[in-house]
């Protein structure tokens, strides 16, 4: 077969028609990845607008722009949107788009599940925002401590939306985690042994296991809360021998590992980007990989540091304090590996590299203030003050948003096929960096001066006026910086220079595909002999007999988990509407539960059952072409 005929055939097999049906039924990981990125970015913008409102209210003392209740709802929605519907999904977006390409596979291990995770992520976000249109959003902060969240103190539907939207999202996130794990373990290119995997695989794999182990605690907590609110049980009700602290235990058993879920894949992306722009392999690859895994493991031993102010035995607190300080060691290992790579390499200061360097600086500041809060006496001083707000924003914005922007500048040429504008990107970085520090550094001071978090206003003359005005100005400067990058994206879509296959001379397999990649990825499933496939002498696509074209249907290679020796051929499903239908049925189920419309929720359950049957019905076997 000629090469043009092969391309045509593969495109026919893997392509999705550009129709409404194709749009709703596609299972292409690249399309789903792009949707994840766009949707999560929209949530970032929504959460950012909420933050802008909050900062406007706090700009000066004694303002009454927002009522206390509105303020509470907005800061809660800001936290939930950013932590649950932006920070983790945006990383899932990158992982969805990039992992099959980096692994040389044609799609994720479960393409239909992948489509389902996207639709349910989107619909759970919509479910959460239905509450905003009713004016009854959750109002108890993103960690929603009982008993304030019980029906007595939080009437209305706000906290019901909180519980059920989160349970819906955990289903989506867990399904996604399972998909990533199986993909990483089973679909790597021949020769990509675990000692040669891109570091992004290590971080995504680690957080996927963390998700599997930690999210059930959130599900249990939200279920208990919903039962307490609407079905008269007594889990968190002291009068019924319940215990409100149970909420905190369950929530933080989930909540602290979640911090690493939104952090580790970002460091994984940095470990991919930074070596390319240092023009050398990363220093200490095995140490970075191991410390990534250890961060995930030890992340389960630190949750109580969110609860030092609750009061518990000295022994328990010392243990968790030690755990919290230990975990900083693993992050430090990564930081030193990056610094050593910079030191030994020849850094090229592209826009992406600016964001990476900014990230390292912010991570160090956020990490140091984290050590403060891990030390019990210091934590008691700053607990529930703006110091904590400063710390968590340095960690989450510094260690999630800056790497995400670096990743956009680095991988968007692959995704869109066009280069971003570099000078504009650097302007965007500097404005964001200055705005961010101007906005959040003063919060350390307002916190140490005693300003509690989550208050809608403050009297003047307490030494808080200046720092708050600075924070507000900084927040708006940060917003301008983000806006510049959005403009940059739209500009590049139209006027950007064509990227070509590998504009950065990078080392990993995704850069060996077209930009944007064809529906099937690469024509020949690549083989790999080192950690840096495109930097070595081996030709990844050398395949004179064409046995790795696999054009007898939607097929890809399955390999062994450790050494990546091919051991089977995986069949991949065709496009189907079932994932969307399943997510819609779940949406009906959960929104009916919010309003206790039990018959409607029963209808949702029945719909879920029938859609699942339709989904799982065995299809006609794909005829295997003769070898």
């Amino acid at each position, binding site marked *: 077969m000629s090469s043009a005929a092969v391309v045509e055939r593969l495109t026919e097999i893997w392509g999705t028609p550009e129709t409404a049906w194709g749009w709703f039924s596609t299972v292409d990981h690249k399309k789903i990845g792009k949707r994840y990125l766009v949707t999560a970015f929209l949530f970032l913008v929504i959460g950012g607008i909420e933050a802008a409102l909050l900062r406007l209210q706090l700009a000066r003392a004694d303002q009454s722009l927002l009522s206390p209740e509105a303020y509470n709802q907005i800061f809660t929605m800001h936290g939930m949107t950013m932590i649950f519907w932006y920070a983790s999904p945006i990383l899932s977006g990158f992982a969805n788009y990039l992992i099959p390409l980096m692994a040389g596979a044609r799609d994720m*291990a*479960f393409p239909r599940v992948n489509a389902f995770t996207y639709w349910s992520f989107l619909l759970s976000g919509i479910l959460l925002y239905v509450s905003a249109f009713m004016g009854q959003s959750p109002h108890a902060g993103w960690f929603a401590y009982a008993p304030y969240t019980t029906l007595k103190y939080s009437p209305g539907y706000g906290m019901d939306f909180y519980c059920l939207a989160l349970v819906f999202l955990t289903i989506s996130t*867990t399904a996604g*985690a*399972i*998909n990533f794990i*199986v993909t990483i373990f*089973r679909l790597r290119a*021949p*020769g990509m042994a675990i000692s040669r995997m891109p570091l992004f695989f290590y971080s995504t794999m680690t957080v996927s296991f963390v998700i*599997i*182990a930690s*999210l*059930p*605690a959130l599900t*249990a*907590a939200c*279920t*208990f809360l919903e*039962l307490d609110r609407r*079905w*008269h*049980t*007594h*889990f968190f*009700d002291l009068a*019924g*021998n*319940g*215990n409100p602290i*149970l909420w905190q*235990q*369950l929530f933080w058993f989930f909540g602290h590992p979640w911090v690493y879920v939104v952090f580790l894949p970002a460091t994984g992306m940095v470990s991919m980007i930074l070596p390319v722009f240092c023009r*050398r392999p990363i220093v200490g690859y095995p140490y970075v990989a191991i410390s990534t895994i250890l961060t995930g493991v030890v992340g389960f031993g630190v949750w109580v540091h969110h609860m030092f102010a609750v009061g518990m035995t000295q022994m328990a607190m010392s243990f968790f304090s030690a755990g919290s300080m230990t975990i900083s060691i693993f992050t430090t290992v990564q930081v030193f590996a990056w610094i050593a790579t910079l030191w030994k390499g020849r850094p090229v200061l592209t826009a992406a590299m600016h964001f990476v360097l900014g990230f390292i600086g912010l991570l160090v500041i956020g990490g140091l203030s984290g050590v403060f809060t891990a030390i019990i006496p210091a934590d008691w001083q700053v607990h529930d003050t703006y110091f904590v707000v400063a710390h968590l924003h340095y960690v989450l914005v510094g260690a999630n948003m800056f790497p995400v922007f670096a990743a956009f500048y680095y991988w968007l040429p692959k995704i869109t096929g066009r280069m971003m504008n570099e000078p504009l990107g650097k302007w965007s970085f500097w404005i964001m960096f200055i705005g961010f520090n101007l906005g959040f550094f003063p919060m350390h001071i307002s916190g140490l001066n005693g300003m509690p978090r989550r208050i809608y206003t403050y009297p003047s003359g307490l030494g808080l006026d200046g720092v708050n005005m600075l924070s507000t100005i900084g927040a708006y400067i940060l917003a301008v910086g983000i806006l510049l990058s959005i403009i940059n994206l739209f500009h590049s879509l139209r006027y950007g220079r064509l990227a070509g296959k590998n504009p950065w001379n990078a*080392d990993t397999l995704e850069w060996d595909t077209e930009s944007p990649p064809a529906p099937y990825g690469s024509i020949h499933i690549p*083989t790999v*002999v*080192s950690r*840096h496939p495109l*930097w*070595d*002498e081996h030709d990844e696509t050398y395949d004179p007999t064409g*046995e*790795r074209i696999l054009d007898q249907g939607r097929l890809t290679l*399955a390999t062994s988990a450790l*050494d*990546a*020796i*091919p*051991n*089977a*051929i*995986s069949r991949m499903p065709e496009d189907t509407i079932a994932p969307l239908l399943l997510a819609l049925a779940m949406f009906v189920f959960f929104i009916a539960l919010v309003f206790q419309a039990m018959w409607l929720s029963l209808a949702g359950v029945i719909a879920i*059952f029938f859609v699942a*049957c339709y989904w*799982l019905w*065995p299809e006609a*076997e794909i005829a*295997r072409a003769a*070898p």
Partner: protein
Amino acid sequence: MSTFTLPVATPPSMGRPLPALPFEVDRGRNAMWLVIATEAFLFISLFFSYFYLAQNKGRWQHNEPPKLMLAIIMLVVLFASSVVLHWGEKQVKKGNTAAGRIALIGTLILGIAFFVIQIYEYMDHWHSLTPFTDAYGSIFYAITSFHALHLIVGLLILAYVLVLPHYRPTDESPYLPYTVASMYWHFVDLIWFFIVGILYIGPH
């Protein structure tokens, strides 16, 4: 390119020539292991809550512990269902699909029997304890009904496997649904062991 000379290893070992490779049949099992792992953590959270709430003994000491008899019978029923299902899975792997279907029907009957006994047990229990009595009632019914929900899901999955048109004993998606469904069912059974140990035998 890079100024570094990277080691040029020999081309990767490809094992058998590709056209001789079988179709891959493990993904379903891989995913089911992970589903079971995350469900296990859900029950760990529930048991943790049980022990955590038990710190507030207060009323708990006055609660009489749940009766053992029915729970043990239910345990035997579930264990028997697992044995039957395991036997059926072996038969299907051997190619004896008719025996596999009979084993499925047996498992379904035992599962439904368990469910019926549980309803009876709930009705008996309800006189002294409801989920609305106190935190003990809440967590007791939460754990047992979470298990019951998983059992219902398991029954639906098994019933679905029963009506599947064919399970051919080749490596072409044959007994796979059968295996994956059994894994889930055995897991649900295993959880009942823990429930009997922690909720029923523990307080005695």
